[in-house]
């Protein structure tokens, strides 16, 4: 079993020093997602700027290294980007995670997110990696519905 393929140094770095962690104001939507099989949880807030870019994503997450690192990488990838681009990145990450290890990740799109390619080969851990991404999409859609 190739543990180092799962626990890439990039993932462990993000796990030890998560980016954008903590809950902040302002925000238009807040969601709470759980992984019912293991109990991992994330509370996540999204703030959209008036120009349609993602102003901030803040979160309070409890979970394993994979889920924590994934939240950190996700915020790096979506904050400051137009929401439509952020959702495209979400789709690319989802495709990578559901690809059973057969999908070649695009580093230009996913940046540090390509480190999760190995996770796709561990079916039990895919949900860990997706938890914060799913929460982001949910919160972003809700925030979009809010009048600015």
């Amino acid at each position: 079993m190739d543990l180092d393929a799962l626990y890439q140094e990039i993932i462990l770095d993000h796990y030890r020093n998560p980016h954008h962690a903590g809950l902040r104001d302002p925000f238009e939507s807040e969601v709470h997602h759980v992984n019912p099989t293991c109990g991992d949880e994330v509370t996540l807030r999204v703030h959209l700027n008036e120009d349609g870019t993602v102003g901030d994503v803040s979160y309070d997450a409890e979970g394993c290294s994979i889920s924590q690192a994934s939240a950190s990488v996700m915020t790096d990838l979506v904050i400051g980007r137009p929401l439509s681009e952020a959702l495209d990145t979400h789709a690319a990450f989802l495709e990578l995670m559901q690809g059973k290890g057969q999908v070649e990740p695009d580093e230009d799109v996913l940046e540090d997110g390509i480190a999760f390619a190995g996770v796709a080969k561990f079916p039990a851990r895919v949900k860990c990696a997706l938890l914060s991404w799913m929460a982001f999409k949910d919160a972003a859609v809700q925030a979009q519905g809010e009048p600015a």
Partner: protein
Amino acid sequence: MSAGALLPDLEVIRKDFPILERTLEGGFPLVYLDSANTSQKPQVVIDAMVDHLERHNANIARAMHQLGAESTEAFEGARDKVATFLNAPSRDEVIFTKNASEALNLVARTFPLGPGDRVVITEMEHHSNIVPWQLACERSGASLDWFGIAEDGTLDLSRIDELLSPGTKVVALTWVSNMLGTINPVAEIARRAHEIGAVVVLDASQAAPHLPVDVQAVDADFVAFTGHKVTGPTGIGVLWGRTELLNALPPFLGGGEMIATVSMEKSTWAPIPHKFEAGTPPIVEAVGLGAAIDYISHVGLDAIHAHEVAITAHLLDGLASVSGVRVLGPLDAAHRGGAVSFELAGVHPHDVAQLLDSRGIAVRAGHHCAKPAHKRFGVQSSTRASSYLYTTPAEIDALIDGLEYTKNYFKVG
């Protein structure tokens, strides 16, 4: 009964379980420490099920042919074995279900409750002995209350006078906690519950594999357990209940085999146990469960329990030697079960389990279907190692080495 002693013929017993020969990725031999989740199966159980399917398969109770008679005999023979295993006064009190959850749901769904009634459970229940009672209370207007957990992982009995007072109709609790390993004083609680006219429902899912379960000695009213944790197959569980109580309850599921007669206007019910066994039951699973009960009874539940105590003592000693480990639950092996949940500082249980799995060691990580008990100790999840009659001290040593490897990998402590 609480003195620890390894099974003298442990190596012979291990040979009864073909899966223990497996090696996993990287050439690591399987170290199976997830028996509280499901136990492994001895060859005799596998053979009994294969033999039934190869030679005796037919539906039961209704087939007017030789195979039907053989299959019925095998199925009902399993009921006899369960009745003996539980020291049940009558074989008709043994109801086959698909698992312990269904057995507990059967009682929660059919037991008469109403506004003003109270159901008492405990904070250390598996979700399968919490959720059915929440549903029953929502449906009936009864209230739900519970025993808490003391800091040492034992049941907090400080509110017993208040909880076991008139108005309480059902006291449902686990005999042995699947997360903390706590063995609860079920006979004493049954005595107190009966003083106020409440019935006692015991979840024996973790007790039946490891302890002699005598429904008369503990004076229970209902007892549930599942086949797959006592070396039997999945897909079969047991509800035992007192005859007079089972007779008074309405049916749970309606369908074939549970009726006396059916007309288009109304139906009448078969006597117990069939009243509660609608439809074709898990026949080959019952045969497998019967073989499993024969197997563990042959080894002896007292001997199995002594083995569990010895292995658990070794496990607790080993865990105490690993800095950063915090065990959740009682620390005296003589007074607890063999499922040991723990935290490892700085490493999430998922990651602990992943690292151990890479060395062939199977444990469980998560909330073990006991979220309230985890919350009680301020943790979201834990790693759980659980043993059975085939577990060796060397496997425990492999786990302890694996934890040091895990700490090293994640550069903690």
